[in-house]
């Protein structure tokens, strides 16, 4: 096939994944955390499709579709939570939301 080597796709995927992971760990706004989570998921999707192409099988693509469905549902729940928190005028700061501590 034409195009760059699978390796480059994997590098991009890894870069996306790490960026997303860093975002989840460092950022304080739940919205940005959710965004970073999406980036991670996209990174994983890219890796899956790259490998599907590499092995010549469609398993990875099907898996990627499933991941997209999960990501969509999870975003719905997450955004709903954030909107509910904003409505209650809570601080949208992950460090301040710790009522569920032991």
């Amino acid at each position: 096939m034409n195009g760059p080597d699978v390796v480059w796709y994997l590098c991009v995927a890894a870069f996306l994944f790490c960026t997303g992971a860093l975002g989840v760990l460092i950022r304080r706004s739940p919205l940005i955390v959710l965004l970073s989570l999406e980036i991670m998921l996209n990174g994983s999707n890219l890796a899956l499709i790259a490998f599907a192409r590499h092995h010549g099988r469609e398993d990875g693509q099907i898996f990627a579709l499933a991941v997209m469905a999960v990501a969509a549902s999870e975003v719905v729940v997450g955004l709903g939570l954030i909107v509910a928190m904003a409505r209650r005028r809570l601080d949208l700061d992950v460090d301040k939301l710790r009522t569920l501590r032991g």
Partner: protein
Amino acid sequence: MIAAAWICLFAPLGAAIAITLLGQRLTRRGAGYLATTSVGMSFVAALVSFAGLLGDSPSQRYHPSTLWRWLTAGPYDFGMRITVDPLSAFMMLVVAGVGFLIVWYSIGYMDGDDEERRYFAYMALFVFSMLLLVQSGNLLLLLAGWGLVGLSSYLLIGFWHERPSAIAAAKKAFVMNAVGDATMALALFLLIQRTRSLDFEKVFPQAPAFGGWAANLIALGLLGGAVAKSAQLPLQTWLPDAMEGPTPVSALIHAATMVTAGVYLIVRTHTLFEAAPRVEELAAGLGAATLLLAGLIALVQTDIKRVIAYSTMSQIGYMFLGVGLGAYANGMFHLMTHAFFKALLFMAAGIVIHALAGEQDMRRMGGLRQFLPRTYWAFMVGALALAGVPPFAGFFSKDSILAAALAHGWYGQLLWVVGMVGTFLTGLYTFRMLFMAFWGEPSAFVREHFHALNRDVVGVSLAVPVGVLTVLAALGGWLQFADVWTPVSNWLEPVAPALVEASGLQEAASSAIAVVLGIAGIGVAWWIYGARRAEAPRSLPLLEHKFYFDELYDALFYRPAVFLANALLKWVERPLVFGSVRELAGAIRELGLETRSIQTGLVRTYALAIAASVAVATLVFVVVR
């Protein structure tokens, strides 16, 4: 003969059970008659056994009989076993005979008491226990009788259970006896280990084969029991307090029978003691020390019963001296005569106490000779017998012991000297008691409180036994006279052959000196208390406090036990009971608190944890692959 022996044993038990079960349906007097009859039956049965033994030749006078197996464990078998042999027949006659007289006397003495039935049940139980002790054919049953006798003593000393002093005395007697029981049990354990049996005919022949220390320990354990039961040094403090019980109890238990059980034990197990000669000598030494100690303390007592109690302690010291030196028959002979005159003294004192409405303090008495002439003469006979004046009973028996001591060697001669001093003291304190109570002018107290005893059943029951015992105290000694006429020694020879025999010269010399000392003691007592020619010297605090033994034991045993118990309660039990569960709960709570710190509530921490775990897992995966 065997059947008679079993009847002798169980008749009083039957009476005790019957009195308990019949309860209120039996009259008080009826309970007394029932008890007396049962003991009388025992005496008759004892006579039958004795007659049966007479018919045998001396070497065949040994008849064991087992009714049922009492305790078994594998090859060990301890049966309900009695033996009819010269020694047990001798003791059966003494116990049942004197017991019969005293229980009969009790009918009059305890008349009117609320709880007469209980008293007679206990007395019958006691006679059964004592007979079990002397008739038993193995050492375990002897120990059972030993303990039951201690139990009856506890029940009877504490008979008037509303008096704190009586209850305290009863408990003290029982606990001290329990110490003796424990040492005896230890001796028996050692014996079982050696001989696998406790039957007399299996144990005694093996005695010389025990090792040195085993034989000594066995004898020591038995001696511990004997010393506790017979109120000898060092376990003697319970006997004077035991006078809290009714006077017939003192007469029967604490003079004639129970306290002599120690002497019986030593004679019965003499082969075990002969295998441990040092211990046997220790027994004699303890007897000598006790007779001196008791004699000195008796000099300062003011309670008439306590004087007689200390005199008992002292006389048993003589018996221990005798059997400790191997003069078994002499010791037993003195046991018998002592039973007669001591019971007599107690019973006469009982009449005095009854007549004075319960007063026992001799300082308030005086001049009773005029009010109770017959009692006075009975008391006089008893006192003369006790002091060892011929021809009364004590002279023959006590002097035979002292003469045997003379024949034993340097140790015996040392003890002979002690015994002689004791003879002087005996005369002194006995007649001090007699003169203080009976001579002189009647005191104001006597004039006020004296009431004569009536002549009915009560009077008869008080008078006749005293009369019989007076005769026995006067003539009983004639049963054995030095080397010349020795039926007692001959009778007991097959069971307990004597180790020492005094020569005629030693007998004569010892007797003469003893009589002189005894009369000297009587003379001094007359000088001070009878004729009032001199003042009694002030008594030493040492004597008044009975050589401080009570205080010593209190400090040595009772207080430490209480202290230890309280300390354990505070330092071990409270923390254990309250603390242990609290500690456990606390520890679990701590663990929970530690674990709780993981739940920070921060999303970022959780995310970090997930990331870290994934990283580690990946690393492991890669490395392993």
